[in-house]
């Protein structure tokens, strides 16, 4: 995988992970172009598209688009399930995750991703093992932190990305 982007329906970038060295300028250009392309696609369209010499695999979960760029010989369907497994991990960790969780706890979203994917390849596919690693880290943190309280997210409406049954929401 060359990179993964998470962005909202309004085109706001929520998370970016690059597995190939690119300049900031290039990254911005790619992001702009892809967000536009993917947002312009209609529901029910195929989740794969050719883009430059890469294949784009994307899926929408509620208000968030998850979008991966893979190489020619990579497997599209398994990439879709990489996305899904990541959503499951977020959901399990945050407990019914919503877009706001990812905004306010972006660093956690990155840590979970690093446990799951490394260097663009799947590192650990077992949900249990990934969460165990994150839990251990959280325990370390509790030992060292005195103050820790859940950050209040205010009274905003929370839209779950991932319903209990984990079905992808299509409009």
């Amino acid at each position, binding site marked *: 995988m060359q990179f993964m982007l998470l962005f909202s329906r309004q085109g706001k970038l929520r998370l970016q992970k690059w597995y190939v060295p690119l300049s900031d300028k290039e990254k911005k250009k790619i992001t702009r172009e892809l967000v536009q392309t993917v947002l312009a696609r209609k529901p029910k369209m195929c989740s794969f598209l050719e883009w430059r010499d890469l294949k784009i695999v994307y899926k929408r979960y509620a208000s968030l688009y998850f979008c991966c760029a893979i190489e020619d010989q990579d497997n599209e*369907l398994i990439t879709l399930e990489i996305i899904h497994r990541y959503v499951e991990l977020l959901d399990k*960790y945050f407990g019914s995750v919503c877009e706001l969780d990812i905004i*306010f706890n972006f660093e956690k979203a990155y840590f979970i991703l690093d446990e799951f994917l490394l*260097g663009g390849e799947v590192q*650990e*596919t077992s949900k249990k*093992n990934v969460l165990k690693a994150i839990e251990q880290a959280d325990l*370390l943190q*509790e030992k060292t932190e005195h103050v820790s309280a859940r950050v209040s997210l205010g009274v905003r409406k929370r839209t779950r990305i991932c319903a209990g049954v984990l079905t992808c929401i299509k409009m």
Partner: protein
Amino acid sequence: MPAVSKGDGMRGLAVFISDIRNCKSKEAEIKRINKELANIRSKFKGDKALDGYSKKKYVCKLLFIFLLGHDIDFGHMEAVNLLSSNRYTEKQIGYLFISVLVNSNSELIRLINNAVKNDLGSRNPTFTGLALHCIANVGSREMAEAFAGEIPKILVAGDAMDSVKQSAALCLLRLYRTSPDLVPMGDWTSRVVHLLNDQHLGVVTAAASLITTLAQKNPEEFKTSVSLAVSRLSRIVTSASTDLQDYTYYFVPAPWLSVKLLRLLQCYPPPEDPAVRGRLTECLETILNKAQEPPKSKKVQHSNAKNAVLFEAISLIIHHDSEPNLLVRACNQLGQFLQHRETNLRYLALESMCALASSEFSHEAVKTHIETVISALKTERDVSVRQRAVDLLYAMCDRSNAQQIVAEMLSYLETADYSIREEIVLKVAILAEKYAVDYTWYVDTILNLIRIAGDYVSEEVWYRVIQIVINRDDVQGYAAKTVFEALQAPACHENLVKVGGYILGEFGNLIAGDPRSSPLTQFHLLHSKFHLCSVPTRALLLSTYIKFVNLFPEVKGTIQDVLRSDSQLKNADVELQQRAVEYLRLSTVASTDILATVLEEMPPFPERESSILAKLKKKKGPSTVTDLEEAKRERSADVNGGPEPAPSSTSAASTPSPSADLLGLGAAPPVPTGPPPSAGGLLVDVFSDSPSAVAPLAPGSEDNFARFVCKNNGVLFENQLLQIGLKSEFRQNLGRMFIFYGNKTSTQFLSFTPTLICSDDLQANLSLQTKPVDPTVDGGAQVQQAVNIECVSDFTEAPVLNIQFRYGGTFQNVSVKLPITLNKFFQPTEMASQDFFQRWKQLSNPQQEVQNIFKAKHPMDTEITKAKIIGFGSALLEEVDPNPANFVGAGIIHTKTTQIGCLLRLEPNLQAQMYRLTLRTSRETVSQRLCELLSEQF
């Protein structure tokens, strides 16, 4: 999970994020960010030392600001400080900042590397993990320099934790991708291969990725991974869905790992060991069988994971291309997907089937799905799926279904998305040309293309139709009649005017007998479009008019009037004005004979790769079309007409080229480029009656040329008067050739002048030096001429040897192609099987490989084939190919500028009387040329 862990207590950060989210406008957001940046800057610069918590908070804020899309130019130092904190969360944030924002700031890299080194050696595996993640995320060269030697040790250490092994494997993979030269192969490689046997499936998954990437570059070193991968795969596919616990994903056992193992196997040819091979075939069959079982869950995740494995298995089957049974089963399975309700599956099935279409075993099976694919073209709502359908139709096209496929593509073109029209036009043009049995069909198809999608018909396409009409006299009358009729339409595309103008200028006489298309009618029809056309088209029409003056003397007056009008003679465009002036003058001063010579019908064009094919390749990128094209080329060779090679040069002035590079004539040797007929100099030769024009190539020259590809000595040409013999030797990039001219008569040859002609392109790549020979050759005598040859760079064309002399008062003019070909500069290279395959894999880039499948033209005799491969210049490598019927060779092409390693493999199929020839070299043009040359030999 405790709720407390979900925020880590950075209230300030949360407040800041809320503030940003509450900003009503972009300006307000920028204002808030600038305020925050100023605040953080002052804190960092302040005298008071910040505690770890504040540092972490501010660094995290900077990170957030950066991720919003703003530039961050400070804070790196503070982040690096966090790395050495002994509080885990501070360290973690430091690492995150580094991995997102690091640039090659050498000072910092040293500090970062120091911190990473400490954590890497830490006894706390969580810290080691953080360090490994950081290396994998940054992956810079500096990191590779510092750690590439260290990580293999961590990877294979007996006491390393599983999670550390996993990270180390992928970390090493990342470093290998960025700096392969810094990752030393060694003892560890064999131990890494054995990780495929590890008990922990997560470790196997990570290791499989690493091994796949390493094996692509070093196949020999990782060869043992094949049998391990097969047995692992076999255990997975036969396991019950609950056996693998958390590695079962929606009832599919270890889908990620399965896909990776199947990918790894695609780095290798089918296993040689029959037991391993049998086991793999069983696995693949099991996977295909499972596809037929009822789903264990209705969830899309279940079917996606299951089908991901299935598609990867099909890729492997196609890669091996050796089990007809599996290939046909794969094809049937994909056929079912073609009508699946999931768009994703239809898309992938179309894509996968494209690859199956180019295998000889499954081509026919793919063809049975033609109706479904055509209906996909008509009914799919997603353009990317329709695009796949177009690709598949193109791939499955052959002579039997070409008419249907072309008709469907044409009708789709009327409503096709703008984004893919040009590509469809190219594809239709290529298929129509390749599979034309009846050239009237070809002409109709191209004219239809222009009618339906004129704007998308590139120059290459209409150049090509003209080349073909000119080269085939059986279609010329029909073409003239058809364009004449098409031009009757009140509004026709400018491209049609171009084609019409050109064709009528050449062949209008063929339909002039019919009063409905009399010369004057033809002229008026064309001239009625003249004023609506752009300058290049007008220039072309002017050439048509002057050709009419020659074809139809009765319209000369009318045409002269047109040329004489102010709008032509005083046209503001230089090119048009010059043409008008010159053509008018030519029509006035030249006698009928001279006109007939100058304006002679175009000679046939040289046979060459279709320029539209080249364009399609360029458009699609080499990877997608090459293989397919090469496989199909066998049938395209006859397009240019009879077996006679076309002359590559002609009396220049007869070319009414509308623009300098029409048809890319740059390749023809003696014609200087530049606007041809308008340059007065070119006409001089004709007027002065000096016979200096170069003769067309002598008949049979092409065959003789081909005979010399694999040998150096012999008779190149012979007629009643003259015999030309050759003797040559080559060493590295230099060569010397002796040409013997024998006078077979008893009369002297006078003014005997042989000339070597190279096109500009060729001259740049091949340097030839020779001295003139004595201009008289006595009856029965032989003169000799030495040519010194130097190959500067790789080249494609061959020089032409033109000989002019007087024999008993008559002027003689002979041209032959001189067999100096790229393969002459081959030096054979002996190598062992493992080296061969290692290099073969190294040249796996699609541009580096050229393949041709062709019918045997000579009896398929093993000894003769061997002799030819040796004669071709490469070493013949025995016992390298697992199939003893195949031939493989290796050698190096020496040029002055570089040396190009070349590998070749020739696979005969006795049953079908066909060959498949594959060339892999480090340079695309070399692969191409060597493949062309060698294909002609069998």
